C-alpha cells in the first residue's frame, strides 16, 4: 500500500490555466506538507498543515492555495499558472508538526507549464 500518494504524476498545461494536485496519506499522520523542487533539485517548503490547520505558509504567491478537507488529505490549487511554476511538487507527511519526526514523501507531480 502506498503511504503517501499524489495525483496526477505528470501535468502539462498552458500559461494562465488553473490546476490542482491531490495528496493523500494513509499513515495516520497529523501533519502534511507541500514542497517545490526546482530544476536544480532544491527542495523548498511551501505549506504545512497540522490536523487540517495551516501552520506554515512560506513566501508563496497567493496564486497557490492549499486545502485540507481532513488530516489525511492536502490538495494544492494553482491559479493563473506561470512558466516559473514548472517544477516537481512533493507532498509529504509526518507524525507530528515538530521537526523531530521523519517526513514521508509522495512520488511527486511533475508540472510543466508551456
Amino acid at each position, binding site marked *: 500500500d502506498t503511504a503517501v500518494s499524489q495525483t496526477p504524476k505528470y501535468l502539462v498545461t498552458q500559461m494562465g490555466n488553473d490546476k490542482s494536485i491531490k495528496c493523500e496519506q494513509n499513515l495516520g499522520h497529523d501533519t502534511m*506538507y507541500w514542497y517545490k523542487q526546482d530544476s*536544480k*533539485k*532544491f*527542495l*523548498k*517548503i511551501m505549506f*504545512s498543515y*497540522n490536523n487540517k490547520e495551516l*501552520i*506554515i505558509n512560506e513566501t508563496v504567491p497567493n496564486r497557490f492555495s492549499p486545502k485540507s478537507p481532513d488530516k489525511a488529505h492536502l490538495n494544492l490549487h494553482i491559479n493563473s499558472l506561470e512558466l516559473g511554476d514548472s517544477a516537481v511538487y*512533493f507532498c*509529504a507527511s509526518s507524525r507530528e*508538526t*515538530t*521537526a*523531530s519526526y*521523519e*517526513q*514521508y*514523501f*509522495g*512520488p*511527486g507531480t511533475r508540472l510543466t507549464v508551456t
Partner: protein
Amino acid sequence: GQQVMQIPQYQHVQEGEDFTTYCNSSTTLSNIQWYKQRPGGHPVFLIQLVKSGEVKKQKRLTFQFGEAKKNSSLHITATQTTDVGTYFCAGPRYSTLTFGKGTMLLVSP
C-alpha cells in the same frame, strides 16, 4: 533564517571508491536528518541524529553529528551503482525542516 549548507554539490566516483558529503549550519541543531533521492524518485528518509558526537552506521553508510551539533557528514564506503542519487541533509526550522541543496552522487561501474 536558518540554513543548512551542503557540500559538495556534485561528485562523480568510480564504483568501489568512497564518498562523503558534508552539511553545515550556522546555528546549533537539535537534530539532523538525512534523505536520499534516486533519479526520478522522491526523497526517502535515511536516518536522524540527535546527540552531540553521535555516529550511526547503516551497512556501508556512516553518519556523524558534530560535537557542537552544527555539522554532520554522510560517508559511503566502497560505493556501488545503487548508491546513485542526491543526498540531502535537513535541519529543524520552526515546526518543519529546512533542506540543504543536496549532493548529487554519480557512480561509474
